[in-house]
């Protein structure tokens, strides 16, 4: 199936000119595989690519050679031609790196990294994973070894979860909460805010006083880091909004995921971001050009004339597949109209699992429109 070319260029132009490609979309649409496929194709076009994957299924991680990797190592992916690397996002290690970079001294690093509240923030606070994906993207973007970074994003129903993660995390770590909990008293000594006390007592009763003490200790330890942290978050934010960063929305042809993809496109648009491309994955392939109406007629005739024939079985099978393909075309139509300025790629459903570099590569060729 050929990728449909519009007047807006092609995937080849996109990966040749972009510095960053962000693949977004809801869970279960094949985003991770798609990101890998785009990276492979870009590498074969001569770009030095690194793909950041988020929680890949084991067989995909195996295919990329990153299964069981810990930390933030980039691993060379062996391709017949081109230079490609892959890495798995380790949000915690990335967060630790951010703290190390901005801290005054080792003591402050130890105090923060050893704090249980920090551990929870780094691993569980909503938005942390998104921000660390963006942070990692920024680091690799500044790494001379790579020309292009392709990033898979954490599964989400909100495109803004990724785009606004730096801001969101900044707000969380910002003075506001802290200032509210801890007010500076005369003489520069910090004491617990009296106005906040009943709340602190209640919160302490709910979650435990020691847990609360950890939180307060964390905010105290974090003091002095915010400035560097904020400056970095702004740089990351700027990269996410730069014209060198392109957004690719990945969808499947099902009604619900099409709606979610449209929501992504509109959210991107609202923040001034264009959706450069839409990839519709797992489309029922067509075998020739057979219309549902004609097939129905033929099936009726065969049912009357030769009800036990192979022909009838084959026609019914074709009718089933055409019904799905027709329904899918209808289902994705609003998305294609809505994202009218985007490049559109259609990827056919594979009869079997996609789990090695060869099959991922075949998806890449389909996205780029040359088989």
């Amino acid at each position: 199936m050929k990728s449909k070319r519009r007047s807006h260029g092609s995937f080849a132009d996109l990966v040749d000119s972009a510095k960053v490609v962000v693949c977004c979309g809801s869970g279960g649409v094949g985003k991770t595989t798609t990101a890998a496929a785009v990276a492979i194709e870009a590498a074969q076009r001569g770009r030095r690519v690194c793909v950041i994957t988020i929680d890949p299924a084991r067989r995909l991680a195996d295919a990329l050679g990153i299964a069981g990797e810990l930390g933030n190592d980039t691993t060379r992916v062996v391709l017949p031609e081109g230079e490609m690397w892959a890495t798995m996002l380790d949000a915690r290690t990335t967060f630790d790196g951010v703290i190390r970079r901005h801290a005054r001294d080792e003591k402050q690093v130890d105090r923060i990294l050893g704090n249980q509240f920090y551990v929870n923030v780094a691993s569980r606070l909503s938005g942390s994973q998104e921000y660390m994906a963006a942070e990692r993207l920024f680091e690799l973007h500044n790494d001379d070894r790579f020309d292009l970074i392709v990033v898979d994003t954490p599964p989400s129903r909100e495109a803004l979860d990724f785009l606004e993660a730096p801001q969101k995390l900044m707000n969380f770590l910002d003075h506001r909460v802290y200032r509210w909990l801890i007010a500076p008293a005369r003489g520069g000594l910090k004491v617990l805010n009296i106005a906040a006390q009943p709340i602190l007592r209640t919160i302490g009763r709910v979650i435990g006083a020691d847990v609360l003490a950890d939180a307060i200790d964390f905010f105290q330890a974090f003091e002095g880091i915010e400035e560097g942290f904020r400056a970095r978050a702004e740089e990351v934010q700027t990269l996410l909004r730069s014209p060198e960063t392109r957004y690719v929305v990945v969808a499947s042809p099902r009604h619900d995921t099409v709606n979610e993809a449209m929501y992504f496109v509109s959210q991107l648009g609202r923040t001034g971001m264009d959706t450069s491309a839409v990839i519709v994955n797992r489309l029922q392939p067509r075998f020739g050009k057979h219309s549902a109406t004609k097939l129905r007629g033929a099936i009726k005739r065969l049912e009357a004339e030769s009800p036990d024939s192979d022909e009838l079985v084959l026609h019914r099978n074709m009718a089933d597949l055409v019904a799905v393909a027709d329904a899918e075309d209808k289902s994705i139509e609003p998305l294609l109209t809505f994202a009218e300025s985007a490049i559109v790629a259609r990827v056919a459903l594979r009869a079997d699992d996609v789990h090695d570099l060869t099959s991922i590569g075949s998806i890449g060729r389909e996205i780029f429109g040359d088989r």
Partner: protein
Amino acid sequence: MVAGKGGVGKTTVTAVLATAAADVGLRVLVVTLDGRPGLAALFGANASAGSTYDGDIVASGRGPGKRGSIHLRTLSAGEALQDYLATQGLARLAKRLVNTGVVDVVASAAPGIDDLLVLGKIKHLVGLAGPDGPHDLVIADGPAAGHAISFLRSPSAMATTVRGGPLRSQAIEIDGMLRDPARSRVMLVALPETTPVNELSETAATMTSEVGVALAPVVVNGVDRAGDVEALVAAGRVMDDDFGAAARFRATRCAVHSREVERLNSLLGNSPIELPHVPTAGLTARDVERLARILTEQVS
């Protein structure tokens, strides 16, 4: 509680299960945790303006004695936490708590507290179930992708970290409900493909051994079976034309599906419930009804 990774049809299975239950005369309360729009449409009800439900009736007068019905209710983790803080004497400050980010601080200080509170609400609803209560069965469309394990583990985790107080006793009670197969079961959903089957069997093992919940039969969604087409291809009775290519494609997919259902069967040690592939791009209420009948046949 219906659980599974993104894209496997968790919401479909929730709708099918609820319909099947209403058709045997049960009054069902469907609880959705992520406010997925379109759930009401799967029951043939007009899609309400928003994507959140507050006990909306989407089916009634079903099954024996026309007693069966389906209600929808949305529960959100953020709201559960706010509500809880409000009941703890912070009602006046609830709004300010959100605006200042204190709610986020609490959720980070005690990870899983929001999950625990949602489970607390579910437990409350389960407690109301019975002949004299407002419903007979609660079906929860589980949390989004991958979170099911940490979600269900939140009570036991909380019971170990929090030393005393109302939260701890609540955590222990909820954990008790989750471990009691008479009160709650987790229904895992997968697609008949290699990666989803691998992930499901890992999740099933963790659920039973580490989380300690009882599993309902596993559901495999979208299974394509076309024995007649497979037989033709196997016998070499297809040509090199479009029809032959279509038949080979279908036969390959069917073979993958039967292989994966079989593999799941041997991994789990019992046969999963199979819901057939529906040739469409989105299920209608009529499809859900048909799938509900198929589910009922396999369970009885």
